[in-house]
């Protein structure tokens, strides 16, 4: 073999090996200016802008940014601007974990606002807890979690169901048909619902779960028609819910006789379902876009002005919005030199804030006291609030598990 040839070939294969180090400094070291005690306060914004969950998460992203912009326009906190660092986790849990690390370790964010699904929250948890950072999670969820590093802004089962189930039995009857997507949230809500039903003398005629993203509900609708339940208790999410509602309507099932009572359907889904198909069905949530408070009017007005008149606000984007204000209020209680995620958390406990839904309070277990409401969808795509709870309802993330309570010291087992 010729020597020159040999060298050339080594060059060829070697270059493949070297390719990873080409222009390495630019590619590899991606550090940004560290937080330290600089001129601004870096916060992470971690909502999917691409992929399947982006349908909902882009609205949360928008609401979070709106609040940040409003706070900055009003002079920031302690004279410092909030600097949002935006990442797109692309609806994929592994990417969530990766991007959360970037925000918390590399970019030294003092808090990260993010995510919609339980799976993505759990993907972010290891790094959040290990680095003792703070993750602001605006979504309603299944409860049963008691991290000291997550601020839970959404409803847990007891806040959505305690008023709803007795009301549903009284108005429509005791026979429930449960339909949900196949993951932990629907199963847990159904568990809680079953425990309420057994106390109130209701019964479950059928319980079933379809894969996330499932889009053909013909068999489900056939079963519903055969079972003739009094209430369809739905925990179907996202585009599955849109398909379900449209096919339910196309099958001419009557909301007056068999209403769908959903824990997950909000203005976003209804906009895609179409007012006509959604009309007459119900949702339980702490917030509806049409809610009548000055805070909400301002929120809706600013949101539309910023993102377009055809945009809607809903119970998760509302939480995403007010959580930024809770964050700001907590920062204000702290001395600018002692801002750390843990200090922010401790300062946030016990805070009250006039949110669009009413005055909310952060419990010592880091969940939020909320104002549950029951709304009936109208053909204009808005909900008419039928029932509003008399008082603010405390979060009990372990309500379905006797002897376990989430407290300020974490989970306590009796």
């Amino acid at each position, binding site marked *: 073999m010729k020597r020159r040839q*040999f060298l050339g070939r080594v060059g*060829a294969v*070697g270059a493949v090996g070297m390719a990873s180090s080409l222009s390495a*400094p630019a590619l590899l070291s991606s*550090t940004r200016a560290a937080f330290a005690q600089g001129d601004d306060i870096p916060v992470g914004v971690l909502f999917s802008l691409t992929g399947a969950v982006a349908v909902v998460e882009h609205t949360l992203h928008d609401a979070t940014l709106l609040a940040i912009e409003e706070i900055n326009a009003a002079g920031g906190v302690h004279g410092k601007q909030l600097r949002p660092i935006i990442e797109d986790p692309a609806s994929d849990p*592994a990417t969530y974990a990766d991007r959360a690390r970037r925000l918390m370790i590399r970019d030294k964010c003092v808090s990260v606002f993010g995510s919609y699904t339980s*799976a993505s929250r759990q993907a972010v*948890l*290891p790094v959040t807890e290990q680095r003792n950072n703070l993750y602001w999670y605006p979504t309603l969820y299944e409860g049963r979690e008691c991290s000291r590093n997550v601020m839970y802004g959404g409803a847990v089962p007891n806040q959505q169901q305690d008023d709803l189930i007795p009301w549903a039995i009284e108005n429509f009857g005791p026979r429930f048909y449960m339909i949900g997507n*196949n993951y932990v949230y629907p199963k847990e809500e159904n568990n809680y619902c079953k425990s309420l039903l057994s106390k109130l003398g209701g019964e479950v005629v059928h319980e079933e779960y379809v894969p996330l993203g499932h889009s053909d509900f013909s068999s489900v609708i056939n079963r519903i028609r055969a079972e003739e339940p009094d209430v369809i208790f739905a925990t179907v999410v996202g585009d599955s819910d849109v398909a379900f509602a449209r096919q339910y309507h196309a099958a001419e099932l009557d909301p007056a006789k068999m209403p769908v009572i959903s824990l997950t359907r909000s203005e976003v889904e209804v906009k895609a379902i179409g007012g006509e198909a959604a009309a007459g069905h119900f949702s339980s949530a702490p917030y509806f876009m049409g809610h009548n408070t000055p805070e909400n009017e301002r929120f809706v007005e600013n949101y539309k002005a910023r993102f377009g008149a055809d945009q809607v606000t809903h119970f998760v984007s509302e939480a995403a919005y007010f959580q930024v204000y809770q964050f700001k209020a907590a920062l204000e209680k702290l001395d600018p030199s002692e801002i750390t995620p843990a200090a922010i958390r401790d300062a946030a406990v016990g805070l009250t804030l006039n949110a669009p839904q009413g005055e909310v309070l952060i419990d010592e277990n880091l969940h939020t006291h909320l104002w549950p409401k029951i709304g009936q969808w109208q053909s204009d795509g808005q909900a008419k609030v039928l029932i509003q709870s008399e008082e603010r309802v405390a979060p009990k993330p372990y309500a379905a598990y006797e002897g376990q309570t989430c407290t300020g010291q974490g989970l306590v087992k009796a």
Partner: protein
Amino acid sequence: MNSRFYYDLIALAVFCAVIFLGVPALMSYDGFELNTFARYLSLAIVSMALALSWGTAGLLNLGQAATFGMGAYAMAMHLKLKVSDGLPDFMGWNNVEKLPLVWVPFESLSFTLLAGLLVPAAVGGLIAIFMFRARIAGVFVAVITLAFLVAFQLLVIEQQGFTGGQNGLTGLAPLTLAGWTVDTYSVSFYYLVAGCLTVALALGVYISHSKFGLILRAIREDADRTRFFGYNVATYQTVIFCVSAALAGWAGMLYTLVLEFASPTYMGVSFSLAIVIWCAVGGRESVLAAAVGAIIVNLLEGRLSDVFVEGWHMLLGIVFVLVVMFMPRGIYGVIVDVVRRLNEARRGGRQDSAEDALLPATIQTNRER
């Protein structure tokens, strides 16, 4: 063993020098950067595993993510048991009262490590026997493995009480390896992953240059002729499928360690197709190139997503299409071509047939019939 073996060994040595010495130094031994890079390295293993079955034997396995996921779950099951006293928390929530039998042996680390390699290998082997005995080839291999992947992922999500469902296995303990508690942000963990990749690559290089690898390439080019020579084609295909599945399982175990959770999305169609893309970008004919492809694409994704928050997905799509269209043999092919042209130019354009014989056959297999 031909002289290409030595070039590959030298390239492997260069690659090792880069990942062992160059990368950590460039990243100034920063925990976060090394952790991110360790993730790329573990993905490089699954990419090179695919190169073994796809590039060498011509079997396009679109279900590679399934075996990857099995490894990931094996490791996660062990770590989950370590953190829970008796019953893992999610089982209680799903009304599972007793630890399922399949979970029990995962208390043991050595069993877990073995299972993470052998279970994927066994499943891969079963599918392979099932397919290759019937002389299934080409696009049908892709379809069967794809259908298996979709069904397997659905099953894992459905069996929430045993698998954690859509959320996967989270809240894991750190791994304790012979008294050493693994910190995923440490330099030593990075070296562990880099070491695993090196071993996997050495194995891959060895296989592709052995007689076994030669027969696999013969099968890729023309399975019938190889059969006429008296080789049992199905056995060769099955063995390489098993090896590839075991390597994928190994990568999965490391991936769980890096990310500290296991998710059913590791077994998703888009992840599986992403593996194929990495392999194609690097060059499917060489295991080393496939590994480099995985590293480059992931590095690129990381950097693009940093700069173009809105548009990075689109840019990646464009890169893939361009690579497939204009670099059918990936980066490896481009480099081999450039070197050949240089050599030809130096010899004044004289054709050198020995030269061509040394080059791997281009993958321009005839259209499936």
